[in-house]
């Protein structure tokens, strides 16, 4: 706290109210704002105070009277003191006085200073000295007069009149000469009174006489009057006056009342015109509301509030109340409108702004956001319900199931489109609104901490509901009943088009959300939906391929398409490849490409990638199954052994048997109905081809379409195929070799096996030829189908045959206790011939069998036998040249 202010100087030191006063002193405040109080003679003059420096303040004096201190109060120093005083006085302005003060003609008597009212009681008698005091405005200080004359008074009529006071008060500035003149004047007046009445009468005889005459005349008139009107002249006068009063009343009352009315009316009219704005406001508000010019309403209302808000006038208050009511209604109306959906965001913002400018109590923007969100959710549900209902309706019409399935996809697509559109549009409105709200544009309490969280929750809820719906729409249904419908009912193109369309809807929605700059969480939800849908699409394509592959069996026509390196194949492997290619290209075209800010579909080790692998494997295995089914399914047809010449028939016509086999093979080549063993072989060839070529092609296709290679699936399939191949081979062998082998023994023993020892052996027994013929038939059949791969089958059969021979050879000694030389010779001959015939097809094992059989025979004893054997062999070779050639050739060599 600094030192208190001290006023040490005042300029001027006295003056009437409003005098500009310069106050000087010390510590009068360190700044203009530091000065917080100024009193001159007790009157607060702070309002006019002008702080100049810490030593100087300029102010105007207030309506004070008398002498008083100048007290300055500052914030820094508190209340101050004063060593000098100011004297305020009230100047009286006479008609002759030059004055800067404008004298109001009809000055109200309540004015606290100014001219004194000229009532008779306050009448000041003329100056006894006959001197004018006009212009002598300098008053002798009253206090000093009181000090000088403690009991005195300056009034001429007072008991305690003090001449000194009077003179000081009125003539303090009168010159000595003037005072002397005044003295003489006063003395003369006193002398004049002292001279007596006589001289007065003398001087005025004429006038006195005149007066006397007048008095006599007056007396006479009075007496006459008295005589005429009786003692009391007053009653008649009174009645006359009363009569005139009533007459005047009757004359003027009407006019007066009319004037009063007119005045009132005029006043009311002027009031009306002056406050026209206010009076017209209710109707103009109505009008503007009707015209939807809400801005005008708000402006008018604010203006009216500013102008008349604090009015005390009842009428205005009433109108204001009315206006307030209207505004309340308007607010309610606006509020409802703002809440009523659908509404575009600009309009909503406009309403919010209007509500804010109308001082809406609530958080309008937040309500708007909430209602928008509710609307969004409701819209979503509506869309959902609508389509659900449609769907049910459709499904109720069971009779048109086919149609339903066709329409189903279309409904879904429409649903998806509608939902996407709704989400994108509404979020487009909601999000900017929220953004502006949180930017503080729309008042309310955006700072409230849970608001942000609420909003986020809202958006996430909306997006989640959307995603759920989409899932329900596209994924669940698609996987269930939809898949059958989609795969079965709609063609691939339709399916693909739908998928692409749906995906495009989703992506459009996602794109628009991206543009909104939404937080990442809701975005990721949508992205997930898209991703899932893409996975779903992929799955659908693969499933479709799977289905088609499964139904391949029906497509098998057994028509040989081409002879490949791996044998004759039907169109199955090609169909498989085509189906796979189609599925893959669909996947590539529709779902593989990632949109903006989407995860790539097939990441290394991701779930979809695994699914792709799995599905591929399923498809391929299904194919394998189909092949297997085709190959091993034979209930409708027994193994056709017509091509084998059955030894039991006891017909030794080899050529007939061979011709039958050849004819059968030829018929099979041209006809559609293949014998079962041919199918078996074809299936094997197919399997082989698929394993070698098709799978590689498929692998290539995966690569071409940018998909990860399903190496594992391929490997598994390859394994399955080889298993299938071997099983086919086995089956074939079983069905073909067994009867063949079975015929050996009976034919061997038939009749001529027990030959007499003496008989000369000149040729092999017929069973050898039968074996050779049978082998030729098998070879022909296998070769016609399998081509290069045929050796395998033939070799296997040879092996079996050799094994059987070895077995029979081993058994032979038991039948014939002592082998005769010719028998041994014959056996040796037969074995050797067989060996020569099938030399091309002998495996090591088969060779062993044969050697074993030969070893069991006693060797040739003499040259003659050897020679004979050679001759017979030569003869055999020559005779059987054609047969041997046909056994050892294949398709290519022919």
């Amino acid at each position, binding site marked *: 706290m600094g030192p208190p202010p001290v006023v*040490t*100087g*005042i*300029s*001027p*030191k*006295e*003056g009437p109210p409003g005098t500009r006063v*310069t106050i*000087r002193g010390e510590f009068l405040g360190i700044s203009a704002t530091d000065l917080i109080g100024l009193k001159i003679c007790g009157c607060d003059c702070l309002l006019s105070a002008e702080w100049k420096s810490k*030593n100087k303040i300029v102010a105007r004096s207030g309506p004070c009277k008398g002498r008083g201190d100048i007290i300055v109060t500052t914030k820094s120093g508190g209340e101050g003191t004063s*060593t*000098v*005083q100011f004297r305020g006085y009230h100047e009286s302005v006479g008609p002759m006085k030059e004055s800067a003060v404008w004298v109001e003609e009809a000055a109200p008597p309540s004015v606290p200073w100014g001219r004194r009212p000229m009532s008779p009681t306050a009448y000041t008698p003329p100056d*006894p*000295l006959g001197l004018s005091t006009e212009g*002598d405005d*300098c008053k*002798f*200080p009253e206090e000093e007069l009181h*000090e*000088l004359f403690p009991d005195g008074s300056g009034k*001429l009529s007072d008991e305690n*009149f*003090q*001449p*000194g006071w*009077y*003179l*000081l008060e009125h003539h*303090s*500035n009168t010159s000595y000469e003037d005072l002397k003149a005044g*003295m003489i004047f*006063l*003395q003369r*007046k*006193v*002398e004049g*009174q*002292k001279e007596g009445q006589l001289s007065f009468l003398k001087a005025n005889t004429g006038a006195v006489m005149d007066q006397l005459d007048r008095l006599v005349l007056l007396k006479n008139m009075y007496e006459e009057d008295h005589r005429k009107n009786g003692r009391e002249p007053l009653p008649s006068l009174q009645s006359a006056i009363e009569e005139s009063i009533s007459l005047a009343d009757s004359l003027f009352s009407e006019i007066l009342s009319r004037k009063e009315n007119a005045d009132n009316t005029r006043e009311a009219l002027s009031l009306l015109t002056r406050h026209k704005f206010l009076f017209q406001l209710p109707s103009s508000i109505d009008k503007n509301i009707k015209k939807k010019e809400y801005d005008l309403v708000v402006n008018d209302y604010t203006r009216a509030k500013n102008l008349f808000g604090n009015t005390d006038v009842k009428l205005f208050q009433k109108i204001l109340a009315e206006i307030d009511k209207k505004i309340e209604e308007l607010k309610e109306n606006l509020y409802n409108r703002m809440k009523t959906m659908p509404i575009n965001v600009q309009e909503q913002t406009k309403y919010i702004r209007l509500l804010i400018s109308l001082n809406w109590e609530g958080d309008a923007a937040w309500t708007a956001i909430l209602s928008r969100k509710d609307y969004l959710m409701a819209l979503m549900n509506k869309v959902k319900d609508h389509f659900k209902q449609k769907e049910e309706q459709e499904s109720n019409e069971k009779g048109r199931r086919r149609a339903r399935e066709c329409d189903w996809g279309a409904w879904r697509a429409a649903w998806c489109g509608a939902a996407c559109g709704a989400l994108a549009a509404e979020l487009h409105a909601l999000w900017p609104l929220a953004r502006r709200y949180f930017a503080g544009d729309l008042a309310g309490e955006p700072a409230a901490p849970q608001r942000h969280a609420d909003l986020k929750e809202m958006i996430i809820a909306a997006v989640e509901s959307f995603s759920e719906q989409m899932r329900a729409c596209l994924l669940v249904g698609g996987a269930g009943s939809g898949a059958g419908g989609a795969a079965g009912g709609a063609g691939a193109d339709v399916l693909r088009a739908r998928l692409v369309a749906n995906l495009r809807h989703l992506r459009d929605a996602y794109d628009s959300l991206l543009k909104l700059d939404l937080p990442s969480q809701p975005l990721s939800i949508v992205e997930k939906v898209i991703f899932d849908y893409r996975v779903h699409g992929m799955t659908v394509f693969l499933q479709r391929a799977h289905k088609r592959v499964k139904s391949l069996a029906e497509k098998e026509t057994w028509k040989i398409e081409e002879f490949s390196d791996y044998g004759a194949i039907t169109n199955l492997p090609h169909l498989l490849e085509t189906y796979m290619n189609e599925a893959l290209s669909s996947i590539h075209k529709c779902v593989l490409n990632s949109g903006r800010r989407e995860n790539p579909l097939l990441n290394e080790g991701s779930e979809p990638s695994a699914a792709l692998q799995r599905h591929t494997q399923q498809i391929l295995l299904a194919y394998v199954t189909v092949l297997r089914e085709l190959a091993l399914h034979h209930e409708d047809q027994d193994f056709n052994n017509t091509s084998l010449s059955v030894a039991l028939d006891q017909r030794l016509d080899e050529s007939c048997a061979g011709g039958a086999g050849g004819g059968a093979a030829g018929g099979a080549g041209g006809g559609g109905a293949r014998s079962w063993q041919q199918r078996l072989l074809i299936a094997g060839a197919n399997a082989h081809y698929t394993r070698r070529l098709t799978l590689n092609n498929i692998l290539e296709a995966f690569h071409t379409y940018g998909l990860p290679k399903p190496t594992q699936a391929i490997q598994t399939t390859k394994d399955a195929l080889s298993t299938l191949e071997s099983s086919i081979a086995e089956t074939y062998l079983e069905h073909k070799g067994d009867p063949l082998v079975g015929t050996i023994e009976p034919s061997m023993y038939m009749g001529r096996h027990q030959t007499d020892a003496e008989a000369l052996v000149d040729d092999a027994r017929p069973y050898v030829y039968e074996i050779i013929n049978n082998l030729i038939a098998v070879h022909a059949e296998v070769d016609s189908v399998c081509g290069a791969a045929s050796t395998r089958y033939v070799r296997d059969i040879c092996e079996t045959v050799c094994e059987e021979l070895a077995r029979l050879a081993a058994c032979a000694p038991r039948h014939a206790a002592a082998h005769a030389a010719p028998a041994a010779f014959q056996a040796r001959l037969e074995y050797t011939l067989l060996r020569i015939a099938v030399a091309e097809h002998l495996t090591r094992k088969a060779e062993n069998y044969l050697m074993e059989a030969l070893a069991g025979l006693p060797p040739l004893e003499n040259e003659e036998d050897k020679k004979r054997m050679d001759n017979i062999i030569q003869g055999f070779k020559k005779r059987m040249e054609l047969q041997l050639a046909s056994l050892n050739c294949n398709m290519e060599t022919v």
Partner: protein
Amino acid sequence: MFSAIAYRLSTTFLEEQQVCGASSSAMSKKPAAQPTLHKVIMVGSGGVGKSALTLQFMYDEFVEDYEPTKADSYRKKVVLDGEEVQIDILDTAGQEDYAAIRDNYFRSGEGFLCVFSITEPESFDATQEFREQILRVKNDESIPFLLVGNKSDLGDKRRVPLDACRERAQAWQVPYVETSAKTRDNVDKVFFDLMREIRSRKSDDSRTANGNVRDKVKRRKIKCAIL
């Protein structure tokens, strides 16, 4: 009736004159707790620098712009020869318009600084009238009084010869000092000199309550010799 009033008025008038003098001296003694108060009155023509001198003395401030004074009052504590006293300065209007009200002010003054401008002979001439008026009001030849020639910084514009000033001071038997409110030359001196005179005058008064005029004159002569 009027004659009676007039008579009483004329008789009391003379009495009042005496009472006035007595009461004014009594008033000055009244504030016992307060330091002694010396009432100084600035007189002189308009624009000679009365207010400038006053403000320079009071606040060490020189006011350039001219604003005619009506009647200003200043009061502050000063240390006069080791004794704390209060000086009350009444700065009066120099303009003739206010001549009528001067008497009232003069009546309360205990000492006078009669200021003129050395660049303005008219103001020097006017000092004569002021002197007469003061003497008439105070009815005292030896009232503390200093003749002050202001604006001494404007030596090149001097139009009142120093001799004339000295001569007049000699005639009045008062000290003559030349000051400059602008440079503060002799400003403190004139006020303190005047206060000293007032003080010595007061102590004389208290010693000889009814001292005759001749004594006072004699005393003043001695002081002049000192100066």
